[in-house]
């Protein structure tokens, strides 16, 4: 199972690799990282069969996370992959828009990894 993390912050990769080092080592999950919406779509096209979950930031230069969600749902009308929106903006409007566009969950930063792990295991 592969999880695609989309965020313009490059350090997100180090954080996930350390936080899920056991899962990575045990090969429970594999993580793919993209630093923009466009890069995520490219990556998705290459490894679409393995990615079961997309964790995407909303506020990114260029294509936003919500736009990425809209496009993903354009390609895949239903999960897989699931799409979790991940953002510092927990406002109601973004949440509603994400729901309308077909997001499966909405997580706020800072990331509550225990909660995330539970959801991943689910």
């Amino acid at each position: 199972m592969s999880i695609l993390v989309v965020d313009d912050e490059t350090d997100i990769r180090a954080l996930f690799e350390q936080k899920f080092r056991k899962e990575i080592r045990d090969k429970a999950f594999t993580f793919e990282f993209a630093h923009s919406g466009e890069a995520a779509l490219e990556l998705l096209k290459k490894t679409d069969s393995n990615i079961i979950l997309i964790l995407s930031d909303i506020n990114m230069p260029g294509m936003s996370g919500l736009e990425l969600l809209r496009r993903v749902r354009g390609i895949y009308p239903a999960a897989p992959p699931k799409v979790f929106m991940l953002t510092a903006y927990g406002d109601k409007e973004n949440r509603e828009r994400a729901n309308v566009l077909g997001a499966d969950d909405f997580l706020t930063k800072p990331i509550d990894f225990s909660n995330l792990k539970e959801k991943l295991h689910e």
Partner: protein
Amino acid sequence: MRYFTLFLLLCSHSAFAQKQDLLHIDSIPPQGLVLNQGWKMQAGDDPEWAKTTYDDSQWASIDPTQDFKNIPQLWESKTVWFRLKFTVDSSFTQRALACLVAQTGASEIFLNGKMIGSFGKIADQNGKVVAFTPRKGTSLGLPLHRTGVQVLAVRFAVQKNLPYIVFADRRNVALSLRLFEIKTLGNFLLNDLTPYFDFSGFGLYIILTVIHFALFRFNKKEKTNLYFFLYALGTLFSLFLVSVVYRHVDLASTKILFLSSVCILGGLSLFCFIQATYCIFKTPKGFNYWFLILYLFFSSIFLFYNYNHGFNLGFNLAKLLVLFETGRITWLATRKKQRGARIIFVGLIGFLVFYALFYLFYWRYIPAGPNWIWGHLAFNFSFISIPIAVSIYLALESSFASQTLVEKLKEVELLSQRSLAQEQEKQEILANQNETLERQVAERTTELQQSLETLQSTQTQLVQREKMAALGELTAGIAHEIQNPLNFVNNFAEVSSEMVDELQTEITRGNTEEVQSIATDLKQNLDKINHHGKRASSIVKNMLEHSRTSPGQKTATDLNALIDECLRLSYHGLRSQIKGFQADYALQLADQLPLVTLVSQDMGRVLLNLFNNAFYAVDQRQKLGVYKDYLPKVIASSKVNDQGIEIRISDNGTGIPIALQDKIFQPFFTTKPSGEGTGLGLSLSYDIITKGHQGNLRVESVEGHGTTFIIELPRI
């Protein structure tokens, strides 16, 4: 006229008894006996013809009292002789007799062969005839023979070179001798009332002259008084001249000159009279007027043109025409009920009545009373009735004008008092207004001063508010920017904590390799925590710098980093502020941009403002919703050129209309809805770039396509 009338009247009483060619006088009436019968006449000259013994039976009979123009012999020969033989009652030889002499020519009078008088000068062979018209009352004593036939012989000649005129129907008698007893002659002369009436006329016309002159002086605009004054003056002179002529002038030439002057003066007086009449009623001058004026000016010619009718044509007719025109005008004025017309009309009626009476006396239809007094009165009343009426009218008019003047004067005084009162009131009002104005000016000045201070204060506050507004816009961006590093700090700290637990476990297990790996990661995490901590610290520091009010110091600044930071802050700030805001942005920064010496917080404020505007513009365009494939985008670029450093901030937003492009740098100008913009952002930015950094800030924009702001900084 009067004299002639008297003459006619006297002629009516005859005391003659004529037997064959001999006249017998048996009585002499009190008014005298005109010797107009029994005369013989012979042309030529012979001293013998004066003698009593000369037989004149062959001579032609003649009445010498007729007009001398009717006796042709007078004009055909140099000299003629008149002879009268008469007898008197014996009683007359006891009485002193005399003759009143009237003549037109020169005469030498002989009684019974002796010359008893001469009047004028009969020409000798080399001389000329000097005609005499003896003054009134000129008498000649008649020393009669005690008995028998008395012979009066008159040597007579006319002065032919004079322009004789018939003045006022007074015939120029050749020779008239009126016989009186001396004792009655004095009474006759004293009973002549003519001087009294003459002097009455003088007095009246002097009064009229003075009054109308005074009235004219009083009111020079009223020309009627001037004309009437001249009329009265002319008439006065005429009366005076006539009186002088008949009482004091013997010389015929002088008399003719005077009487001609009287006629001309009379014409001028009539002219003044008709002028006065036209003035009184303000009658328009038409044909009648001009005809009359022409007639009056040329009428004097008739005097010398026609001996018999010259006076009637030249003066009487003119007078009648003037009276007729006066009557016509007065009648018209009466019908129009013009003031004064009735008075003058009554004067005219008076004239007609008295003039008619005069002629009734003149023609002896009714007796004229003793000494012809009623005739005198009728003539004088007719003569003065119109002038008196006109004078009464003018006096009344003057009185009316005077009354009106008094009333007007009162009105003027009243108005003056009112005007004065109003003027004082105005002055008071003006003074009050001035005082009020000065007070208001002082108040306004104070208010303006306060307003200026308030304005300056407000301006300072606005500038600060603009900063704070920009800061407000930043807050959300800053929050996001701080949130991210803080999240990393938290997450890496949390992970590190877990890894320390794992490290301890692995140490216990003695798994050195794993311990090494965890330690490396821990080290990496600590670096990350340190990095993101510093990152957050830097953001806070920048925020503090931005809000600082004191002028900052110029320092060497990495402009690209500043552009990057501001772009991101602006973007995130707007995202937090504007719901659903989404835009692309890109940085096209020069690779080797040198450090630029500038006040970084000021430059940051400019960049933030420009980025905010750019994102706002693209958001606005997107909200229009008319562009289907519209992708909002903001691009920031920097480059180095010959002049210095150029920063371009471009957007594909709504653009700025050309008309507004000159205004956008003006203070308080904003296109944003009320409450969204202070209108100071671009103005402050412009000042920071141009005054603070000696650079330039300009705009290039196409409405509906986008805007590019260009910052040009000198290379320092």
